[in-house]
């Protein structure tokens, strides 16, 4: 058994799991965070995307042990008690999610992009989402939602934008 401790959505969580357990299984089965989905289990579809130490990764390709000691953000950690994350808000307003199964992965890929690049071009958004398969939406409204979320986030913290530019 492997003992793992990590910070998930800002909280310290631990578990003792067989060594071949993936991060996806750990999140879903041990921590009851079922937002990350099992779509293919081999890293082709992106439905399991989570953010580990600031980077969007396929949780099905990472062993639980590899996430030991790291910061993990799942879809459940994006909103707060007070409000939805702007990305969640714009996806809702634009109709960017239909069946919703790919949603958590897409939103986290978008967040990872906007955290690093607050003013992405359409092509940069397409690139960031290219690892997330969606069969329902055709991606069109998703791209609009990410653009709108980027705008809202820039409005919220112009100081951060200035900092990023220097």
């Amino acid at each position, binding site marked *: 058994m492997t003992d793992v401790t990590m910070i998930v959505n800002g909280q310290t969580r631990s578990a003792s799991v067989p060594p071949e357990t993936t991060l996806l299984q750990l999140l879903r089965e041990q921590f009851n965070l079922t937002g990350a989905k099992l779509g293919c289990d081999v890293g082709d579809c992106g*439905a399991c995307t989570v953010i580990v130490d600031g980077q969007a990764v396929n949780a099905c390709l990472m062993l639980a042990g590899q996430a030991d000691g790291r910061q993990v953000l799942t879809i459940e950690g994006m909103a707060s008690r007070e409000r*939805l994350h702007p990305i*969640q808000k714009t*996806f809702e307003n634009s*109709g960017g999610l239909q*069946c919703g199964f790919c949603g958590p992965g897409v939103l986290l890929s978008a967040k990872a992009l906007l955290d690093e690049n607050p003013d992405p071009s359409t092509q940069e958004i397409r690139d960031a989402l290219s690892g997330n398969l*969606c069969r329902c939406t055709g991606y069109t409204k998703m791209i609009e939602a990410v653009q709108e979320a980027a705008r809202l986030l820039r409005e919220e913290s112009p100081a951060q934008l200035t900092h990023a530019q220097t």
Partner: protein
Amino acid sequence: MDDKTKVLEREQLDIESLRESEVDLRLPAVVPREPYPIETLAPDARQQTRAVGQRATRPDGRLHGLGQTRYIDDLSFPGMLHARIKRAGIASARIKSIDTSAAESMPGVMAVLTGKEIPTNSFGPSFQDQPVLVDDLVFHAGDGVAAVAAVTEQIANEALAKIVVEYEPLPAVLDPVAAMREDSPKVHAPDSNIYATKVIRKGDIEKGFAESDHIFEGRFSTQMIEHVSLEPHAAIADWDANGRLTVWATIGRITLARSDMARTLKLPMSRIRIIGTIVGGNFGGKNEITQEPALALLSKKTGRPVKGVFTRGEEFTSTTTRHPIVMDYKSGVANDGRIIARQIRLVLDGGAYCSWSETTLGKACILAPGPYKIDNVVAEAFVVYTNKTMTGAMRGFGAPQVCFAYESHMDDIAKALGKDPLEIRLLNAFDEGSPSPTGQVLHSVVVKESLRKAADRFGWEPRS
């Protein structure tokens, strides 16, 4: 002091010391919950009292964005087991024996199921030609041969490898046109591989061709396609003590699912409850039962809820797909571009089982002439068994295939006659009140409006 008082004193002592300690007394089974905002104020579009025409946001959209939507695989119940199905891996065979003993004796394996244990081992929306688990003949490589329920999915996977099946390979036929021949191997012997036909006749086709200035012919074909819903097929089955079955399923047709479960399990419908959760994509691929009767029987055998989730591989090998179609078109056209006569022959690859093929056949045949005013039409369609994955309902039921054919054909005609592709379509397209190829008077017809609107938006200018 008697024994009872001693026990009470001791218990009180323990509670006191616990209260003083710093041990976290919360039960470990209480699951922490991630915070989310509760907004009771509805977005503007949802508050308007003329509701039709509003760009109203979806309530499930918010839950999706929070990751709170519970799909089948997100549900779990106390004591729940995980099921997996062993796939044949061979396209056509007779099963000589199935030995499940090694799997059954594995620690953690709670039950194994084979086809002969299923009360009525056949289902299908039109012909009941599909077994839940094959027990004599294998019809395609994705057929289910046996099912196991175990305490973890990993153990269930390992158990599959321990099930030993002896096959006698039989000849397989993979090409639908070849399968139409009398000397082809018969998929569901002794019946012909052609399992349904459809014909539409309108006007006088030979006269129409005779009156035409030009005859054009073309053959078009399309491929087998998989729905690839992001959520795989999944279901959970559980019984209560009164012998009442509840199934949570990704099926888009729960009324049909209930009647299929009643039939395969020989149960009255009042003893069956089917609950559809929010499904992660269907597109036609989740419109009939697949593993549900097997899960129900595994649950009955073990007395525990049983969950089955298809792997991505099984989504390709063992769920319905889009019909590949070979389409032959022959059109008689006047000099000005009017289509006088059209003859069409469609051969649909009908896979190993009928599934939604009859519906697909019918729609493809009716739609095949295209949205055009044609006085003389003959459309013949055949659907043929092959030893490949069953073909069923997929977004369009044959329409995307025939549209590819008739619109490619139309452009070929336009090019040969030197006509603009937009103009030739406007010349031939249905008007309000036009008769369809089946003689139906059409209403609310806007195909020309759609042509003009798209052309306008696109910036389609005729080329000189």
